[in-house]
């Protein structure tokens, strides 16, 4: 099954066969549907964990209760029945989305500013040559991005551009080519059925 699905994607990419091309298109759409069907797997898993906590009144069970309540609200108001005023035009659904989910997402993302600072303070120390290289290139880059530095020392822009275009580009390209090789090898192993990680029978 895995092999058929694989070939259906690969062959039409290299060979000009219209029938297969159409089949591949339909198959990809079908796969997206299959994946969408899995959506409740997550809900069930979350409920299994948190309903149990509420039931047993384990430490912090009221937080689990909070989770369940919000899952229920969002699932019910978000059902795709616009005819009954539900779905992405529902006012409760939208209110929660804009005033809770959006700020939470944005904040969570922005919290990285703090982490990147504290990690840099710890890691950017000239312990040895390699660490010193990280320190120098990292700090030059930080300076090259800030108008306060580039305005007084314009050459910083050229330096950081050079680092970006030469060592950084070389690193990314090397790692990328290597990762492509790794991915192909992994694909071969999976297709030959020897990489068991993802799909295991109960043998062993």
């Amino acid at each position, binding site marked *: 099954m895995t092999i058929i699905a694989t070939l259906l994607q690969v062959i039409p990419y290299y060979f000009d066969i219209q029938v297969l091309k159409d089949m591949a298109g339909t198959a990809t759409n079908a796969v997206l549907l299959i994946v*969408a069907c899995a959506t409740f797997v997550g809900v069930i898993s979350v409920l299994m964990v948190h309903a149990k906590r509420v039931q047993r009144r384990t430490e912090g069970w009221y937080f689990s209760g909070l989770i*369940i309540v919000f899952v229920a609200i*969002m699932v019910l108001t978000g059902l795709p029945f616009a005819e009954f005023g539900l779905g992405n035009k529902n006012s409760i659904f939208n209110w929660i989305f804009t005033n809770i*989910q959006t700020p*939470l997402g944005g*904040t969570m993302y922005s919290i990285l*500013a703090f982490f990147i600072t504290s990690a840099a303070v710890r890691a950017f120390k000239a312990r040895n040559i390699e660490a010193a290289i990280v320190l120098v*290139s990292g700090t030059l880059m930080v300076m090259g991005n800030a108008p306060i530095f580039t305005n007084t020392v314009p050459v910083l822009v050229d330096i950081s551009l050079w680092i970006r275009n030469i060592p950084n580009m*070389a690193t990314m*390209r090397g790692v990328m080519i290597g990762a492509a090789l790794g991915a192909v090898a992994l694909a071969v192993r999976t297709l030959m059925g020897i990489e068991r990680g993802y799909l295991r029978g109960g043998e062993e």
Partner: protein
Amino acid sequence: MVDMIAAWTAVFFTLGIYSILYRENPWYRIAESVYLGVAVGYGVSVDLLYIRNQWSGQWSTSAGMILLFAIVMIVGLMWYGRFTKSTFYLYRWPLAIVVGTGIGLALRTVIDAQFLQQIVAQVKTPFFVAGNMGATINNILIQIMVPSVLLYFWFTGTIRESAPMKIVEKIARYTMMAGFGSAYGYTVLTRYSLFIGRSQFLLGIPPNEPSNQLAFIVIAFVMLASMIGWDFTHKKTPEA
């Protein structure tokens, strides 16, 4: 009034997340739990809408497609076999299809974008650029660095341990440290841009809601006071 509740709610959850910077605390746990609940529910609604839209799109156009749709749905339901002991292996069917498609997509695209295109770019980097010393040096550096990085990952055989490879390894490690260091430094900008965005939101700077500012001051005070007060009365320095 309605706008105000909205502003205070948004500010509350924003600060709830930031409170983890001080330590793990109930404010964070509220924000975290609500986020989890909302996000799970939201994901479901997006997926269900997708299924419905697909059905009203191309899948309901002919009898053959409707039949296919039914088969796809049955396969989709097999995921749930996982939850009962007798049918748990059923989930492997949809999984096999999904994994196969993924590998197929990988095989057709990885080789092209991550392998060939990069080698083409390598080939287009000549060792000598007439009349441009700087570009010549840069190109030669690239021609040394990229193969070194690639060879660094060499897994098998004894060649990897040979003397010339030690030099390659050094070049590769230094290149990568410079490369990763610069990538790190560069990212600082993004992360701070995001935080600046959130700060503009908290301060109520347009296009954000001006009433955020008051909410920011009040809620930040309450959260900080409660956490620091608790630590103070319980005489324990919080763990970092």
